């Protein structure tokens, strides 16, 4: 029996998820591991007094729709969009099949978790740098940065 902090569990799962993603391994596993890491990192970032990925997303949504979505409901919404829910729940009336874009959702789940991880620990660790580098080259990093620069201040992370 050993004592761990949940931070250790989140970091280990995120590292595994990044490693599996960059090695081209199963995307479903990446989504589940990144989702699990986020479930812990979100609370840790909140406790550090910083804005979490979830709260930033809620703020953006408020800017767009005029209404701040509830935290729990929006968290569920994001987890559904990223495929996290489909990988860890199955209800009696669910169909036997489901439509997913696993590659896109794995990248999204990792982006969310890495964002929160960076809020806590910065971006110097190799696995963080590796994912950011992949992201820059494969998710139109320059284009995203340009759109970020042009975005109004209220739509930027705090």
């Amino acid at each position, binding site marked *: *029996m*050993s004592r761990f902090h949940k931070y250790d569990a989140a970091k280990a799962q995120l590292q595994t998820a990044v490693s*599996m993603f960059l090695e081209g391994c199963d995307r*479903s596993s990446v989504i589940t591991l990144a989702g699990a890491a986020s479930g812990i990192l979100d609370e840790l970032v909140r406790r550090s007094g910083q804005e979490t990925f979830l709260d930033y997303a809620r703020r953006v949504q408020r800017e767009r729709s005029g209404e701040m979505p509830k935290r729990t409901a929006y968290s569920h919404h994001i987890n559904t969009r990223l495929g996290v829910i489909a990988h860890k729940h*199955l209800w009696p009336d669910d169909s036997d099949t489901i439509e997913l874009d696993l590659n896109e959702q794995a990248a999204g789940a990792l982006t969310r978790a890495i964002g929160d991880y960076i809020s806590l620990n910065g971006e110097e660790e190799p696995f963080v740098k590796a994912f950011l580098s992949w992201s820059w080259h494969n998710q139109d990093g320059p284009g995203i940065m340009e759109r970020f620069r042009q975005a109004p201040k209220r739509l930027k992370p705090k």
Partner: protein
Amino acid sequence: MSIQIYSRFELAENQLTSAIGLFVSGRDRFSVITLAGAADVILSRLVMNEGKETFTQRLAKKEAAKGGAPIPLPTYGRAVNDLLFINQLKHMDEGEDGFIDLDVEECALAAISKALVSYVALAGDQKDIVLAFKAWARQNLDHMVPKVVRTPVWPMRPNTRMEPTAVGPLARPGARGSFGTLADKESMMIEDLVVEPMTDVFVLWRCLHWGPITRCSVDQCPSTDGITWERYRQRNLPLLRKIAKTYGACAILARDGDHIVGQLRFYPKVICDLKGAGGLCLQQDHPAGPSEDFADHDFPPLAQIEDKILVVHCVMTGSPLQRENSYQRKGIATRMVRALIQWAKANGWERIEADSFEDIPIIYEVTGSAGHTFWEKLGFRMVDRHVHPELQDRSKFAEFITTLEEQAKAIGIPPEQARDRLVMRLDVT
């Protein structure tokens, strides 16, 4: 890749495959638990959809049969998942301190086992991941490490069951079991097993070669040619009492009720290096065992020891010399090593060392010694390797060494490394 249609079974199967892959390759255990847990949620529902009984339903039914108050299935399922920390590894609630106390190795193994039960119910037991996990289990669960010796005495004729003698060959008879069914897995748990350091209050002065020992039976020795029990008793009792009194303990014992079913003997390295220590085997004469007057030595107190290193002498579970050994494959050796690690940390030791070998089948079959994988699973790393002194002379055990090298080659280990003694080390500070 773009939007595609996936079956729920496929999503679960892929996650379980990843969990098993991560597990057998020694990677992160938290990830294993999460992935196996996620897969099991889906697989269990699919099992129910087929009108079959799930693992949790079976457990709940068993519990109800014992006469306990009926527990709603979802509550029972949550309790099982909580036991494996499946939920704790993906959630953190406001206000909680975030600390979790768990045995990651056992939880990972149990989470995979639980998910595999559902998987097998749906897909049968001949799928690659099932076969792969079975193969891993055969190689790594504790039935493979009933006895880990520091200084094995190599038998003259490999694959021959050796009778115990005063110079004690360390053959391990008995078959390797298969991974087995759900019923086997359930029976793997020993309720109320106690794993604790052996102090100077009760001293296990002889070993478990002939089976579990109780306080009452420890002095009732089996009649065996060549072993002078009373002489060993008179030598070992004061020696072990003195070491235990000086350092607090010199063994970890696993107890099932009154029966001691596992022993892990360890000594400070400074004591192993003293003149007269020999191989410190308690059932052998010097030099394989300690000299008759070894207890008369002055043993330095911990504060005076510069290199605070403990050496694992041997690990033994059940009755290694009996054909049937119901205490193997139950994680007892693993639990004892973990208890040693805890004890060492709590008592000011800095390192633990253990001798090991390559994971070659004949090593297990003939000596009962664990391969390095057993120690690596527990966090040990290899710090030295050299040809085992007893195996340096090829002519001495020619037949055995030839088989050893052939087996090594067959599983991809360079034959020249097959005779190596591997020194495993864990820093506990």
